[in-house]
């Protein structure tokens, strides 16, 4: 996983609540067996005026000029500002893969759906939760000033605006540590291999029917 330290970047506003993972990356693109290449199809149904197909050359497709990510002032954005319950719906990890592949490193919203939240952190995508009123203000500021950038400092859990205003955010210690260090979860868990084996042995003794070789004996 990529390390996340600090991102100072252009902010793009997606003013919409309950953005679901079908909207982030439609199902026809889930047929890929890779983890990369989803960025061109991020928000496909909002971004283009036609129906996207896997493997197609997206540079030839008609784009929706009204969609925020197609506007000149938001090109190169690495921070997505959005509304409540972002990432609801399916468990597809293709959603954070697409956001990352497109170039986003941070998503800021009042709340996120649970499964998406997990998936994002496992891929080095930082999700920052701020209060509704703060989000309203950030939307107003982004829209008012072209080239609006934010500085997101994970180490100190702060978002800093161009005027120097600071918004602190919460993030759990373990996720923060993994993100800052770029740690591989599996490698970390396997350090507890002995504890897992010991648990497994007790578990099997207590409830052998949970193990198919015992249940079918």
């Amino acid at each position, binding site marked *: 996983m990529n390390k996340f330290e600090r991102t100072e970047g252009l902010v793009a506003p997606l003013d919409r609540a309950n953005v679901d993972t079908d909207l982030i990356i439609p199902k026809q693109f889930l047929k890929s067996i890779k983890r990369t290449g989803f960025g061109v199809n991020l928000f496909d149904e909002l971004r283009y005026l036609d129906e996207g197909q896997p493997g197609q050359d997206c540079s030839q497709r008609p784009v929706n000029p009204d969609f925020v990510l197609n506007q000149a002032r938001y090109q190169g954005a690495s921070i997505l500002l959005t509304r409540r319950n972002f990432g609801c719906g399916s468990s597809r990890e293709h959603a954070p893969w697409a956001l990352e592949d497109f170039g986003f490193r941070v998503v800021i919203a009042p709340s996120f759906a649970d499964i998406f939240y997990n998936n994002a952190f496992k891929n080095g995508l930082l999700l920052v939760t701020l209060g509704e009123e703060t989000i309203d203000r950030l939307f107003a500021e982004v829209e008012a000033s072209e080239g609006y950038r934010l500085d997101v400092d994970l180490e100190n859990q702060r978002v800093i605006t161009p005027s120097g205003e600071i918004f602190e955010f919460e993030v759990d210690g373990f996720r923060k540590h993994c993100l800052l260090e770029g740690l591989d*979860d599996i490698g970390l868990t396997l350090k507890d291999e002995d504890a897992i084996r010991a648990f497994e042995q007790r578990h099997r003794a207590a409830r052998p029917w949970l193990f198919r070789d015992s249940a079918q004996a």
Partner: protein
Amino acid sequence: MAGQTLYDKLWSQHLVKERDDGTALIYIDRQLLHEVTSPQAFEGLRLAGRKPWRLDANLATPDHNVPTTLKERAEGNAGIKDPVSLIQVQTLDDNCVEFGIEEFKINDPRQGIVHVVGPEQGATLPGMTVVCGDSHTATHGAFAALAHGIGTSEVEHVLATQCLLAQKMKNMQVRVEGKLGAGVTAKDVVLAIIGKIGTAGGTGYAIEFAGSAIRDLSMEGRMTVCNMAIEAGARVGLIAVDETTIDYLGNRPFAPSGELWGAAVADWRNLVSDSDAVFDKVVELDAAEIEPQVSWGTSPEMVTGISGEVPDPAEAGDDTVRRGYTRALEYMGLKPRQKITDIRLDKVFIGSCTNSRIEDLREAAKVARGKKVADSIQLAMVVPGSGLVKRQAEAEGLDKIFIEAGFEWREPGCSMCLAMNADKLGAGEHCASTSNRNFEGRQGYGGRTHLVSPAMAAAAAIAGHFVDVRRLDDQPVAEEA
């Protein structure tokens, strides 16, 4: 000290290790795998030179991509016309062979939607932890199993370590007391719950569904309710063990037998919340007030009763909600205050992990028997949840009832719930669907999904528009459009 909730018990029974920061390692008893969210996980194992921790904990079947027409299915994988879908299904087969995981392949009679197959086989048992790279894994909570959807990185993590990194959720109890009216089903109950608490109402919680109306549901009805917990934002939906649970599990292929069965049943009877358990949140619904539900918008919380109407965005609570309603009505092609019964349909889909089990098909067949699908309906399809459900339905003659009424009778798979195969809506088409999500584009680019119960979907197919299934016989049948 207060007693434990069912969720607390399941959590503590699987806790391997708890870190100081609140992150825990929990042991996973069962992982279900399908073709869409597993290829990158297997690839990760290969790249790191890792092997699955415990093969017998895993069970795989292709479901999302598989075609549902008999013609294509007759040829097995070779019949999958979409080359990208074919690669994905073939990759699952190859990975299961390479790593030694049991798979019900495309034309195995036991193949089907993972969330139908697991319980049907007894591969989902009370007291288990069950995961799958699919958010509707909440379904298995109907058996008092701690079950939830995970992402692909977590699929790989569980394959490699048999554990998951998790944080304990909060406890919510949703109590539905009283008797459901005739024609009101488990699907209507869960849609009414989502309508009440909202699509983020359960975020951060494990929801236990309780109350006499839940107890009165069959296991299949309970699976329908738990299946949609995620549509209320909760990864986990649970229902306590009772006789209904135990009766369902006897003699299932993966379930224990002989002496172990007795020991298991004795243990399972403890899988209920203690009477003095404290929930962080309690929500109550009166079963008698629930009428057949129909979703009108692009989020499952945008739902109302069949006697209701589409809301007026001008009356929404806040700006964000108002904009959401306005956008939803525009996408759905509906007007404020339009009557639900005035919504005309183009297609009807009966299937999905929410509603494709034998009881669902019986409910729909009861409505369709001796009637005809309205001429204005372009396609009405019934997609059984598994090969075994299909076989059972055919043994009962349900296939004939559907075919005579003008429905298409298909092969098992996820089908038009998410339209990864060839079954999809065209732009602007309205569909009465027994699935679980009405998101924009979910059932096809520009498609307009209305979530309903199997009986309501069948009734809509006959009438050509939404109609109260309790009064179908009083309604004039739609004339030619």
